[in-house]
């Protein structure tokens, strides 16, 4: 005799502890096994792209803070790079060094958040999260020192950065740089060898290189699948071609690779920050530009390797003081394309870890 069975449909989110914001997944379960997934977006949609059309070029910087609120510095950077490309100018060298330094600090902070929440999703009750938050706090303190804000920094400007580094910044940075490698090692020792963590992550949530490329996945998720593509190396912007660092590559594209890769990227970021500090040139930190920018008519695409992947701004100018069109290529949103294929066949518990290992940020997904 066969019993008639039907899948049970569960709404995971928009209010759910591990959807990292307001994300909703409609999931059809066959027992514990995921049979089908439909992501539902838009709970945090604020219309940033439309708002940008009604603001001057400088004002839009404040909007970019609110995209990926875990990594506002890189959003700033991507936007100002796009405007600079549109205007055909370049920031002075000191400004570029400061920008790169901030972006790499931001990458460390963002990856720390990802690792903490990844472990939280896996059921480690708060401890890794608190460890990572403790270290992220130091970075936010540094940001507060340079621009007065911790999250909504609005630090970068077209043609440089808003203010030069304050005198107390360098000693604080040195203290931080002395501390952080040991803390990353601590995290790795605490987490990477854990039998349960390995059982939960190895060979779970496999993403082949082929599928990752075809699905427009970028960032750590792409590199974990074994594709050597990091914009900082492949298409160096600003001063990355003068810095020495490695791009870690994963092998299998499973949860474990995505997790360990971020630990390694943090180490490389520390290297970059250290080099920036040592090579920091003098001179102006910002170009003298008029209050209202009027880029020539045309279009430009500026992109950076954000912690989540390739963050791009496609700007179209009609010669006025506001962008005619400001399209955002947000890595979090596009990385979710492959989510459905990655989830089907895994269990409910794997769903949260796979979703966490992609490291998406809802502010950036919904924009």
């Amino acid at each position, binding site marked *: 005799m066969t019993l008639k069975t039907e899948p049970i449909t569960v709404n995971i989110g928009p209010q759910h502890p591990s959807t990292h914001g307001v994300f909703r997944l409609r999931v059809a379960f066959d027992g514990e096994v995921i049979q089908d997934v439909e992501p539902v977006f838009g709970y945090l949609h604020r219309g940033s792209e439309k708002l940008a059309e009604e603001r001057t070029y400088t004002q839009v910087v404040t909007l970019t803070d609110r995209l990926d609120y875990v990594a506002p510095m890189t959003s700033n950077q991507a936007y100002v790079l796009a405007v600079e490309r549109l205007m055909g100018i370049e920031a002075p060298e000191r400004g570029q060094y400061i920008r790169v330094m901030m972006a790499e600090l931001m990458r460390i902070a963002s990856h720390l958040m990802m690792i903490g929440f990844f472990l939280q999703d896996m059921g480690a009750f708060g401890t890794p999260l608190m460890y990572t938050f403790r270290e992220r706090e130091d970075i936010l303190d540094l940001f507060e020192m340079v621009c007065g804000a911790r999250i909504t920094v609005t630090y970068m400007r077209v043609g440089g950065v808003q203010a030069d580094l304050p005198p107390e910044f360098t000693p604080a940075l040195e203290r931080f740089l002395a501390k952080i490698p040991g803390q990353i090692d601590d995290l790795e020792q605490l987490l990477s060898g854990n039998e349960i963590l390995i059982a939960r992550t190895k060979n779970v949530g496999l993403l082949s290189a082929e599928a990752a490329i075809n699905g427009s996945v970028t960032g750590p998720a792409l590199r974990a699948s074994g594709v050597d593509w990091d914009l900082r190396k492949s298409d160096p912007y600003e001063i990355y071609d003068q810095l020495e660092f490695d791009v870690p590559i994963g092998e299998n594209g499973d949860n474990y690779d995505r997790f360990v890769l971020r630990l390694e990227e943090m180490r490389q970021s520390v290297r970059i920050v250290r080099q920036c500090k040592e090579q920091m040139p003098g001179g102006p930190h910002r170009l003298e530009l008029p209050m209202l920018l009027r880029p020539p008519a045309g279009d430009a695409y500026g992109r950076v390797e954000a912690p989540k992947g390739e963050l791009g701004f496609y700007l179209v100018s009609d010669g006025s003081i506001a962008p005619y069109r400001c399209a955002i290529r947000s890595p979090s949103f596009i990385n979710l394309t492959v989510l459905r294929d990655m989830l089907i066949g*895994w269990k409910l518990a794997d769903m949260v870890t796979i979703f966490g290992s992609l490291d998406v940020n809802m502010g950036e997904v919904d924009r």
Partner: protein
Amino acid sequence: MPVDRLATGCQPLGFWDGMGLWEQWGINFFPRLGDTMCRAMGGATPGGIPDWLIFAILGLAGAFAVVNVAMLGVPYVILLERKLLGRFQHRVGPNRVGFFGLLQPMADGIKLMTKEDITPRVADKLVFSLAPLVFVVPVLLMFAPLPWAPHAVLADLDVGILYIVAVTSAAEIGVFMGGWSSNNKFSLFGAMRVVALVVSYEIPLVLAIVGVVMLTGSLNLAAIVEGQRFVPNLLWQPLGFIVFMIAVSAELNRAPFDLLEADSELVSGFHTEYSGMKWGVIQIGEYAAIIGFSGIIATLFLSGWKGPAPMPGYLWFVLKMGMIISGFIWVRATIPRLRVDQIMNLGWKFLLPLALINIFVTAGEILAYPDGLPVWLIPVNFAFAAIVVAVAARLLGIQGQPRQVVPAPPVFETMASS
């Protein structure tokens, strides 16, 4: 009916004679209280009060005392957990209410009792309200045969450990009732997981006890404590202790087996829909179970009320319980959660063989040395346990099933062709 063995503190006449007060307190929390009542009622009206009435009154008094020990213990175990978790996580933990946060449990209790009690409209109201009770009552029943000190036991059952195993698994009925009646899919998932979990882990749990019972030759908890003459059973039964600790973690739904209320997956599992004091009752049940099982571990493996230094028995007992509870909290603060199929794997493929090996080895040792095990077996036992665990972990481990690609068609029509 022999009253003296059934109710707390009611000792045979002449038991206390010649003892100092310190010794008496060492034996019982309230020396001679039950005794005095017993004698007062029996003495005032010889033959007037029937035995069954004395039995009933003393039983109720004892039950009241023991249940209150559990109920007052729960808030402070919760406080201990929050404090310790805070320390593990570079935080301070609650420290605002009262001295060192000691009044925090009271504040929590008042908050829970004044909170609105919400029952979902679609819930099965009767079962929904009944579930916390069904959950908490078996847990409290578990305290009856626990020997807190010599002769300080509410119900000195000859089948004590069997009774405890039977009663505690009944608590899961309450979990399933709560999960089912909430009419919430997360609750249902949690409830279904708990049934699978309990069925799997009850077996290694019982089999791990068998080794201890074989050593002692009795199911009576007081007799098991008495049987651990010079060294605790832990030293004879390291393998059994490991299996029992893991199985108890699962039975208590503690990390890393807390998958029935996995907050990152199931919001909070079977009690997602509960609020107010119903939720509080469930919380009491969970933490009372932790206290109770810690007591059982202390009794079975750590020689219960006995200790190397002269100290009242119940203090030793509570100290050992506190150590075990702290151990559970430590594990919770450190280890990520296992997946449901990995938990099944661990239960059936790792713990069950280990428990069986333990039984065989213990039986062999007892047969070889019927007059008591020699001391040199202790290091041998530990080495053996280490080897067996290492080999079994390598061979069987916790690897679960690989990805199950379901051949069924897509469910959501909109995504069908993609």
